[in-house]
């Protein structure tokens, strides 16, 4: 068992999510609002998809060391996808291809030399000849789709016996359909991945579908951890500025105006350049490449978090300025309740919805930001599987002949699904918790 720092973070993130859900049990008003959120078909379906992404990220966050020198560290996800992870080819091959995209020199019997594609080592091995491929793919696809959908249906039928799902008026049917679709798709991807490269292979022959799935954890971590890192700063400074006013307010405003004044990309770039220098000069600190990449990932989150808290802090300051003039706050003050208690009892619960909305909105923005940063070369480690790195590669690949589009496609589908689900959920949450500010961020 090997625990990477980011693993700890991922599990902590999920635990805090569970804890958040748990405390809803006591809060009737919040529970009612969440029920409203879930009443939207799109929000519920998005939640199911997001949970699926969380599940993948979790499976990718249990690591242990192995004796295999080529794969010194593996995660549970790697084990589930062993066939894809180890099915290394020499270079590019198209989705579902059984022949390579590159050509090798062959000498014919008559002495002439031709260049031909070669058979892939890990695709279509069970076929006797290439003409069987079409039938085989149809048969296998049907099989795996039915298996996936069937498993999900059984699961749903078992769950449907729970009281929770019987008595409520939520659109469970939508959730069920989403789950069945997801499950069928996953089973199909997994099953087809056993005998083909569903999304082809990349430059050094790695399976692109595998890379795409590995990118889930990176994206989720950058979105989730960074948002979480900004919260303590944003909440404490924002509320303090609005509640205490005076010099505290001046100091906080000065701090976030200064941070905002520095162009965001440059601040991140400078910090990452410095971090890179440090990591390069202290390579001996890390046992494996993966552990170094891991620390760099956390650094990216830290740097993004450093600049990311200002927006929410400004919002909370404005809200606290309003709240402190409320009669119940004034009454509490008159009774001699301490500032700390007033903030804890009267201010915090009343800005909760702003924090919540900021969290979900920031999340999708950060997933997108990761791609841009990696593209510029100041994001996660180039060896780390991430959607930004895949897009970065795609730039040269589009200029090849024939065009290699599958890296770009994999990153696109992964990012689009995650960000769209997050955006749809965020929209609904905003609609319910703060109807006036619909569409504002």
């Amino acid at each position, binding site marked *: 068992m090997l625990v990477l720092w980011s693993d700890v973070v991922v599990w902590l993130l999920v635990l805090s999510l569970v804890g958040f859900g748990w405390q809803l049990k006591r809060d009737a008003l919040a529970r009612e609002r969440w029920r409203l959120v879930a009443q939207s078909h799109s929000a519920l379906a998005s939640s199911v998809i997001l949970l699926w992404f969380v599940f993948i990220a979790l499976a990718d966050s249990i690591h242990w060391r192995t004796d295999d020198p080529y794969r010194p560290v593996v995660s549970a996800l790697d084990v589930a996808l062993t066939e894809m992870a180890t099915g290394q080819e020499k270079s590019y091959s198209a989705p579902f291809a059984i022949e390579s995209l590159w050509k090798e020199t062959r000498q014919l019997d008559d002495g002439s030399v031709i260049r031909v594609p070669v058979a892939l080592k890990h695709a279509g091995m069970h076929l006797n000849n290439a003409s069987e491929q079409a039938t085989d793919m149809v048969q296998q696809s049907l099989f795996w789709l039915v298996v996936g959908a069937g498993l999900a249906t059984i699961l749903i039928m078992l769950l449907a016996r729970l009281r929770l799902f019987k008595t409520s008026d939520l659109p469970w049917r939508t959730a069920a359909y989403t789950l069945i679709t997801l499950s069928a798709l996953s089973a199909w991807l997994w099953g087809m991945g056993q005998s083909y490269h569903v999304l082809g292979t990349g430059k050094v022959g790695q399976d692109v579908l595998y890379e795409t799935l590995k990118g889930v954890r990176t994206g989720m971590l950058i979105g989730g951890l960074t948002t979480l890192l900004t919260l303590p700063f944003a909440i404490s400074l924002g509320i303090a500025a609005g509640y205490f006013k005076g010099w505290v307010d001046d100091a906080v405003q*000065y701090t976030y*105006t*200064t941070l*905002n*004044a*520095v*162009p965001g*990309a*440059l*601040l991140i*770039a*400078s*910090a990452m*350049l*410095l971090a890179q*220098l440090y990591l*390069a*000069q202290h390579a001996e600190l890390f046992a494996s490449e993966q552990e170094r990449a891991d620390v760099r990932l956390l650094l990216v989150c830290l740097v993004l978090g450093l600049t990311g808290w200002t927006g929410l802090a400004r919002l909370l300051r404005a809200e606290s300025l309003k709240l402190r003039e409320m009669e119940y706050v004034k009454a509490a003050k008159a009774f001699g309740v301490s500032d700390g208690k007033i903030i804890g009892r009267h201010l915090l619960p009343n800005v909760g919805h702003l924090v919540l909305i900021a969290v979900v909105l920031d999340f*999708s923005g950060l997933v*997108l930001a990761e*791609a*841009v940063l990696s*593209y*510029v*070369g*100041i994001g996660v480690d180039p060896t780390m599987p991430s959607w930004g790195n895949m*897009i970065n590669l*795609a*730039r040269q690949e*589009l200029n090849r002949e024939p065009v290699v589009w599958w890296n*770009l496609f994999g990153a*696109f589908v992964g*990012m*689009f699904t995650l*960000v*769209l689900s997050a*955006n*749809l959920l965020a*929209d609904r949450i905003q609609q319910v918790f703060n109807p*006036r*500010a*619909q*569409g*504002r*961020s």
Partner: protein
Amino acid sequence: MTTYIIRRLLWLLPILLMVNLLTFILFFVVNSPDDMARAQLGNKHVTDAAIAAWKAARGYDLPLLWNSEASGWSMLSQTIFWQKSVQLMLFDFGVSDAGRAIGADLAQRAWPSLWLALPSFVLGLVVNITLALLLVMFRGQWLDKLGLVISVIIMSISGLFFIIGGQYVMAKLWHWFPISGYEPDGDLWRFLLLPIMLGVIAGVGSGVRWYRSILLEEADKDFARTARAKGMSQWQVMRKHVLPNGMLPILTGVVAVLPLLFMGSLIMESFFGIPGLGSYTIDAINSQDFAIVRAMVYLGAVLYVFGLILTDIAYAWADPRVRLGDD
């Protein structure tokens, strides 16, 4: 008004000071000139003499804050802080680590950046507001709903995909535009049209939603309802009542980012090979030229502060209820 602006300036000056101090600490204290030299000359097999020569050539061999070897005024001025940071405050950008005059580079590269950024911005604004008006006019109907769905979808696609895909399809496959490049004298628009278009498309999702929410707020107010009740057409209500009132938040938002257009777009410029300030910055980041990075940070901060002042002025100008400096 004048006193207010002077007061604001005095409040904003410390911000520039702080930004400068921050870059000084980041680039000279946390990261010593020795580290910079080593990174530039290749981490391994670097002799001390080579490092010393590299530092001397760029003026990084001085003490940080206090030169005890010099005398009189030179004790302060013959330091890295004075030579680099204080000079930067006075807009003397100095020489890049590669030996070019940064000030001249900035002056030359600001134009391509502006040629790209300003039309993108203006066109984006016009398109976004027009579409938002349309959605608000048909509020709650299928056009509004469809528009919102498309907005969310566009919003969920990384701008990188628009740029990469747009360039591939429209320049490489269809040959409508040159793939990349820039000719200041020749067909400027031929090179700029594609990046401008893609920039507008990439921003239309969040833009339309943002302006729609602003306009919707105005459209819900009493005066708009009254106007409709007295028989004005929906379009007239929009034009005469909703848009003018919505212009205030729109205007103040616009002037805040207007100066920052000078900084150029990092991704767009580097991708389409436009020699503006954005690609200048990216090149500096990639070649780890800290002198340019410092200059760009400071320039960005100055423009941001300038934008803040413009916002205040715009408020006072557009909203007769705001009287600056009377409080």
